């Protein structure tokens, strides 16, 4: 090969790199391992983390994943392909994206979805930026975001939109119901508001009064950005039907649809909108068209919105989507169907109701809000939550998410979740262990 190049050795190929810059050693990288050695290491690391009984939700939910989902996703033809730039050699990925867009459209009740974004949090940020572009009546670049929206989603949205000067203003919630407070909105009467974000179910698991919130925003010229859990859409009113006109942009994290918890990723963000706003949407979009012979086929479309064409004037700098996870979500939805998803949603609601019932019967524990909920709930304790969570973890139970950092006003508050992946026996085991721990530990 060197002879064909006309070079005496491989080093000659690097002759254009100034000698002073060349690497002398990589002492900080260990010696290479063979596959058997590296797998031994990884088995040991995995064993260290164990398999605790999980009652944490807070934006990442443990669901049963049909074995077929990842058997197909891991096929090399999906796993090791890239963005479908060459449509003729990528019809598998392209058609899957089209089917995915169709399913997200069906779940959310809006006409058009993109090919996915990084995750739920970045999808909220992109939706806020998109709302500023789409709402031509508003010049304030002001987005109202209730405190009942996931705190990490709010943090990501702040980090992602600050450079472009978006004004994110937080709205208070009602201490009694855990819902966004109507009087928090009233202070914006007569002001220019670009968009209102509504999370349903909200971070507390509580159901918001989405019709009233949507109509309030629309009556004042603001767009509505819905943040939803896709599993809940099997039983909850789709955002396209909220209020008189429906939400304008819908986003969320697709993780519950066939994606394992996996320490927080990879997941996928989904986004849908009205056809009117399709040209303001970030990310890839696939369309169905025909080939030279008139046969149906699929291709990336509306690419004039994107960075590789528009460069500095693109709707976003996003290039890839979360292709593999989007495929997992599509296969999961096809496998479950509407009836299966409804069963999952109902099982989650039933199990969480059992969990709240069992835990709030214990002395020193009560449910924070009496409002209707989906599959999460806030519990209030008479003592700090962190030591309890540590003690539960020592017993193989991940007991929930401590709300102290983000919602100190709630006191000793814990967010718990039980999906269909938890059995009635799991719930009983948690209640039993917590009961013992509460008796052992003293009130602070």
């Amino acid at each position, binding site marked *: 090969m060197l002879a*064909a190049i006309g070079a005496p050795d491989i080093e000659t190929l690097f002759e254009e790199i100034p000698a002073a810059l060349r690497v002398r050693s990589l002492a900080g990288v260990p010696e290479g391992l063979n*596959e058997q050695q590296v797998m031994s290491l990884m088995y040991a690391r995995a064993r260290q983390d164990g*398999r605790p009984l999980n009652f944490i939700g807070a934006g990442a939910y443990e669901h049963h994943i049909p074995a077929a989902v990842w058997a197909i996703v891991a096929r090399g033809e999906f796993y090791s392909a890239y963005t479908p730039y060459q449509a003729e050699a990528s019809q598998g990925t392209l058609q899957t994206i089209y*089917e995915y867009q169709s399913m997200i459209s069906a779940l959310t009740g809006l006409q058009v979805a993109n090919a996915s974004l990084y995750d739920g949090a970045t999808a909220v940020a992109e939706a806020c930026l998109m709302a500023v572009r789409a709402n031509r009546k508003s010049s304030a670049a002001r987005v109202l975001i209730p405190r009942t929206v996931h705190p990490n989603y709010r943090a990501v949205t702040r980090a992602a939109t600050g450079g472009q000067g978006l004004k994110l203003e937080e709205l208070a919630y009602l201490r009694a119901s855990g819902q966004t407070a109507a009087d928090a909105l009233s202070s914006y009467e007569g002001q220019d508001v670009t968009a209102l974000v509504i999370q349903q179910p909200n971070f507390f698991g509580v159901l918001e009064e989405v019709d009233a919130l949507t109509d309030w925003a629309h009556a004042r010229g603001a767009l509505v950005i819905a943040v939803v859990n896709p599993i809940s859409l099997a039983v909850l009113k789709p955002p396209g039907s909220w209020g008189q006109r429906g939400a304008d942009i819908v986003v969320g994290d697709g993780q519950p649809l066939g994606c394992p918890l996996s320490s927080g990723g990879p997941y996928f963000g989904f986004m849908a909108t009205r056809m009117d706003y399709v040209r303001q949407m970030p990310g890839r979009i696939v369309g169905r068209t025909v080939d030279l012979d008139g046969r149906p086929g699929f291709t990336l479309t509306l690419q004039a919105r994107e960075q590789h064409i528009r460069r*500095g004037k693109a709707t976003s700098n996003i*290039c890839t989507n979360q292709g593999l996870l989007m495929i997992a979500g599509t296969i999961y939805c096809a496998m*479950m169907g509407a009836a299966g998803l*409804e*069963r999952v949603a109902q099982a989650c609601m039933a199990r969480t109701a059992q969990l709240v019932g069992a835990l709030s019967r214990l002395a020193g524990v009560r449910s924070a809000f009496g409002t209707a909920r989906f599959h999460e709930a806030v519990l209030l304790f008479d003592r700090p939550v962190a030591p309890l969570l540590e003690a539960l973890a020592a017993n193989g139970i991940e007991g929930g998410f401590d709300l102290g950092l983000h919602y100190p006003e709630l006191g000793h508050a814990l967010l718990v979740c039980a999906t269909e992946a938890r059995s009635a026996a799991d719930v009983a085991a948690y209640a039993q262990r917590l009961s013992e721990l509460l008796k052992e530990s003293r009130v602070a």
Partner: protein
Amino acid sequence: MSLPMCERLIFDYGRAGRGARGQWPAAEGSVPEIPASLRRSRPPALPEVSELDVVRHYTRLSQLNFSIDTHFYPLGSCTMKYNPRACNAAAMLPEFLGRHPLATARHSQGFLACMYELQEMLMEVTGMKGVALTPMAGAHGEFAGVAMIRAYHRARADLARNEIIVPTAAHGTNPATATMCGCVAREIGVGPDGDVDLAALRTTVGPRTAGIMLTNPSTLGIFERGIAEVARIVHEAGGLLYYDGANLNAILGKVRPGDMGFDVMHMNLHKTFSTPHGGGGPGAGAVGVGPRLLPFMPLPIVARDGEGDAARYRWLSEADRPQSIGRLTGFNGNAGVLLRAYVYMRMLGREGMSRVGEYATLNSNYLLARLQQAGYVAAYPQRRASHEFILTLKALAQQQGVTAMDVAKRLLDYGFHAPTTYFPLLVPECLLIEPTETESKETLDAFVVAMATILSEAGSEPDMVRGAPHRMPVRRLDDVRAARELDLAYRPVSG
């Protein structure tokens, strides 16, 4: 080699009442009531199909794809190298898959140890002083990098600096990122030899310069020889240097961005560290920083307390890094992808790192030499190719009316994925070809044979080449119709 023909939509398989019932949870006796105003009135229009329908349909769809596992995929700038299966197997161990991102420290030490060591290894191979793993793609890493540059200037009350200099040959994500960060992109040209035009750079920098974004080797497939001078000019003007790690594969183990003078960079772990491209993601765009940007890194970052058996790992938060640009992902980035990159790096080890750069460059230069012998024209014949190179088909387009796109499409008929076409924009009728280090000489030779055949076909049967591909599931698609008559979702036939 030919692919199967078209496959119906999953919706077309649906029959009322059919379903994969073995996947449904048992019906619950008592489910809390949802208030009527918040309830769904009609079920979503999802397909009603059996498990076999689903498995067969998506298996067939997968077979309509070209992929690294089935085809040579020399897509320039994308580093489509083999993805070792062990990386996937390790990341898919049940303990890792089942681990909740907010789990307690007790159930996190194995995962966090991997992440910490990954940070350390990435620092070593890039020469940077800190690494944050959470950005979820190259463009996301770019955002983090430019946001840090912006935060750095603001922290010094140097508020006028809002210009990001970008070479005209740069990826579109570079100027788009500058805009997202509230900066303005200023483009500068490259000289006839492909290096950055230093005279233009000197007149462009000034008190408004926030920084410059560079890929090295550049998107032209050649090493930026004046990099030390570029660094000096930008630093003296008060700006910082951003390294776009798209082409890190070319120099892995040979030269480090930190040593070239870069202050901040992203690494495309799905390129250089061989995590899957997955049909367009998930990627991973870890960022590395020099000393000046350490306080501004995105969160969370993994820290280690104690040494050896006593070592404990934890996530750093805003309390530890109050000047951070903040949180860029819902949880911890594409954690499962990061595990795959970790396994890949552990398997390569110290020695393997420099082999990557060497063999990627050897394969690229060999392929370039053979294609030139076959009659193709290099865009920069006087320069040494890096891990990728550009052919320009301008003469072929003028003489035969056969374009770079036609050649790319005809390659599909011969069972090769097309190179990147029409990028970078400043080279007319170009193909950007990146073979990667994992391909054998025999594969490269077979590709040369196909390219030579196409060149001959362009002379003898130009119409046939212009009509390619002919052996794919579909022929060329009507993109104009796709954009004009938008059909973006299946609509069930009513009634």
